[in-house]
């Protein structure tokens, strides 16, 4: 038995189908005014990649500065602006839209058996809002930057910073609405647009996790929006809602900000979890272990996610009783994540496992997310939070979750669905290499940060005491490896657009509806609306379908 399930059509005869969503219409306007969720997904993919590399370049500058204890590469002011921009861009312009707006946008309508998202025009509007938000962020960056940190802490942001807080705040406001519209579209689509026979428990877990994340987007983001409006008004007009000199309470800002920004962590990670469910099931040739538990754990994370925000404020003078409640709830929200990890691990049990690139990234995700999640418990427990918060420990923790978790999941998903999106395969060996390089580079970059954080090195320091240098040098060295790991996919994925092998409909022999149609799909996705009779992750059904499948090549 071969060690791969890769199932490509005969390369001498196969072609990419002439008629597909990419070739359906030509010209720039056909892209800029498209209502097609797949084209919008591609537009999003291009724009978030652009912002990812800007954010990544800023991260590189941060690591370079931290190579030495002194602030010698740049002034501390510049450093502050750089880490602020890194945070704003990575959080609001990369992580939040990363999987949902690209892979989710592309796959969810197909997975539920619909021709498009419920509101194609709103979907396009969401992309334009994203662009406006991104453009404003870039404008703020070019015209002098902003130095409040991505958390816009008042009264720093309202009265003490003399940088472009207003522009950046409004940029985040606009980008927030882009995310609201994406989430709204997903919820409506999953509720209303399912194909005949596609019941809730036949939905792929990718849809479940997007559904959960969308709830958070729709209900959480507006609170951030109004908070930023108040910050902007306080800065421009001088109203006194958060200003302690006028009787306002800066802690209130923290409450409102984290009411969104903690659920935002789940907005970022839940879609990634959805990708991992799909990938692990496909490459283990097995139904996800405890499908219902995984599905409901996503919803549980979404619901509990709203109850835990004040754990960001344990040392900020919230009441001791609030600390107790929020700490307890934080412990509870950790459980669904643990459930997911074990369910994924047991999906492998008695599977028939192969190790293609998406699976390697998924393994990376499981390891790194486990570390990220468990270190989160260190911070959720009030007593240890006091020592660890605001140090590099917390930086390492959320990078393990966000970069180790979400980015790994994103890359896993991109590699998994790339043949579906483009109709072509990327070179397998080099992509596996990239996955391994990323994993190694990541650990080199961020594991030392746990250690240096445990030693007490505060975050957002341009200069730091001598004794932390060695670990920082490790971290910077790792970052250069990580950089290579991220550059490689860009190169070979672009290469594959022209020279990659023809992928065929279902190179991974996966069960999702998206794999039963041609690659790249038609604009209307399905020639006939599917009537779903098979179960979700039904590999026996798939094997029985083999003959039928071939006849469907468009």
């Amino acid at each position, binding site marked *: 038995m071969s060690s791969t399930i890769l199932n490509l059509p005969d390369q001498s005869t196969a072609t990419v189908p002439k008629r597909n969503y990419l070739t359906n219409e030509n010209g720039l306007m056909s892209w800029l005014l498209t209502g097609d969720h797949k084209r919008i997904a591609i537009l999003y993919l291009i724009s978030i990649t652009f912002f990812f590399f800007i954010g990544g370049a800023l991260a590189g500058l941060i690591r370079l500065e931290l190579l030495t204890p002194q602030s010698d590469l740049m002034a501390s002011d510049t450093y502050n602006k750089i880490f602020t921009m890194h945070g704003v861009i990575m959080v609001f312009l990369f992580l939040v839209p990363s999987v949902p707006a690209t892979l989710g946008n592309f796959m969810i309508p197909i997975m539920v058996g619909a021709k498009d998202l419920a509101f194609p025009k709103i979907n396009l509007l969401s992309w334009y809002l994203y662009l406006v938000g991104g453009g404003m962020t870039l404008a703020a960056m070019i015209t002098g930057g902003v130095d409040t940190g991505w958390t816009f*802490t008042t009264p720093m942001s309202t009265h003490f910073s003399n940088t472009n807080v207003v522009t950046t705040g409004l940029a985040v406001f606009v980008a927030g609405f882009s995310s609201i519209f994406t989430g709204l579209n997903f919820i409506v689509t999953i509720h209303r647009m399912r194909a005949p026979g596609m019941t809730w428990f036949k939905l792929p877990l990718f849809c479940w996790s997007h559904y959960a994340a969308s709830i958070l987007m729709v209900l959480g983001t507006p609170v951030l929006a109004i908070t930023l409006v108040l910050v902007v008004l306080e800065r421009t007009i001088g109203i006194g809602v958060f200003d302690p000199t006028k009787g306002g309470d800066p802690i209130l800002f923290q409450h409102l900000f984290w009411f969104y920004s903690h659920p935002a962590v789940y907005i970022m990670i839940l879609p990634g979890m959805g990708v991992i469910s799909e990938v692990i099931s496909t490459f283990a040739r097995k139904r996800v272990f405890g499908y219902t538990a995984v599905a409901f754990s996503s919803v549980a994370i979404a619901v509990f996610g709203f109850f835990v925000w004040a754990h960001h404020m344990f040392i900020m003078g919230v009441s001791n009783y609030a600390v*107790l409640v929020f700490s307890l709830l934080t412990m509870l929200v950790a459980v669904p994540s643990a459930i997911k990890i074990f369910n994924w691990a047991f999906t492998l049990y008695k599977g028939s496992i192969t190790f293609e690139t998406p699976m390697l990234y998924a393994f990376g995700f499981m390891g790194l997310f486990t570390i990220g999640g468990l270190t989160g418990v260190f911070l959720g427990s009030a007593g240890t939070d006091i020592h660890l918060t605001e140090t590099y420990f917390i930086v390492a923790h959320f990078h393990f979750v966000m970069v180790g978790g979400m980015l790994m999941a994103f890359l896993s998903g991109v590699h998994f669905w790339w043949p579906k999106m483009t109709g072509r395969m990327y070179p397998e060996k080099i992509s596996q290499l990239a996955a391994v390089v990323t994993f190694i580079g990541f650990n080199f970059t961020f594991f030392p940060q746990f250690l240096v954080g445990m030693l007490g090195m505060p975050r957002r320091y341009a200069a730091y005491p001598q004794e932390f240098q060695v670990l920082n040098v490790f971290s910077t060295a790792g970052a250069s490896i990580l950089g290579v790991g991220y550059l490689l996919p860009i190169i070979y994925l672009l290469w594959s657009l022209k020279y990659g092998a023809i992928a065929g409909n279902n190179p991974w022999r996966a069960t999702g509806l998206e794999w039963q149609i041609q690659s790249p799909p038609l604009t209307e996705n399905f020639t006939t609306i599917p009537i779903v009779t098979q179960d979700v992750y039904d590999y026996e059904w798939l094997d029985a379908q083999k003959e039928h499948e071939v006849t469907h090549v468009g």
Partner: protein
Amino acid sequence: MGLSPVLWEFLVKWMVNFAIIPPEASRIASQVDALLVFMTLVSLVGLVLVGLLVVGFSILYRRERNPVATQIEGSTLLEATWTIIPLGLFLVMFVWGSVLYFRIYTPPPNAMNIYVVGKQWMWKAEHPGGQHEINSLHVPINQPVQLTLISQDVFHSFSIPAFRVKREAIPGRYTTVWFEPTQIGTYHLFCTQYCGTSHSAMIGEVVVQSAEDYKKWLNSSTSGTSLAQNGERLFSSLSCNACHNGQPDSRGPSLANVYGSKLTLTTGQPVLVDEAYLRQAILNPSAHITQGYAPIMPTYQGQISEEGLISLVEYIKNLNSNYRVQQTLNTTGLLPEQPVTPTGKAGSSAQGVAKP
């Protein structure tokens, strides 16, 4: 391939100074570390378990060995197991962590108080005896020290990793934290809440000294005026004594022994008079009127600096206590009286330090 000398030097340095945790220099540090060790062990077990499962299954059930997967729906028993066991562990961590939290933020009654003002970008410590320090903090060993923190501008955060304590300094409000140093030495003091341009320069050192050295330091760095004396001056220059004079017909309540007492406000609400209350009552008097008095006190918002407020608070705290009465003319003996701790050691040493 020879190792570059620079890299070599680095590695040697790292090996020599290798530490996972900062020095344990306070009473609470070892307790925090115990929980940290417990959590690390649990995490390691969890990680190893997940790792073993993934690697083990990957080897056992790779496609070459197991060409056809066996479809399994799930297992309620297993799922209950990995719901309940992590939940149990997390709850243990929650209880343990909360107990620690309350310990870290509940100062013992015999703690000596030092005020710390954070401002962009320095820490200013104000000792009751009138000693000022910038970006450093001298404390005696084996003596509980309570810090009353306030920020003059933005959020700052007062962090001493070696003591495992940290607290935000918030504009407009006192917060407190306490620790009991147990090792003589010099430790890092950081501002950990991002506070603007020179955030990373807002660092200093905490110097833990023996009782004798601390006494010497107190004597050598006194500014000549204690906080309470300074407060007394402010008290009269702001004409506070016009109303708060303790006369039977005075328009303001007597402030003697008011600190630590329980007052009833005009709203009928009972309050405990602490530093935070005193500060609020000076700045926002109308919301803090004692029952039986008219709301005629003007606000001093914007008229007194945070340092001035600290002096006033410190003065009122000590006002007309017996100790204070005896020592009125003594310039350096203005530390609040320390009740003797059960061990008798910590309290008496602080008293000894305080008396010239």
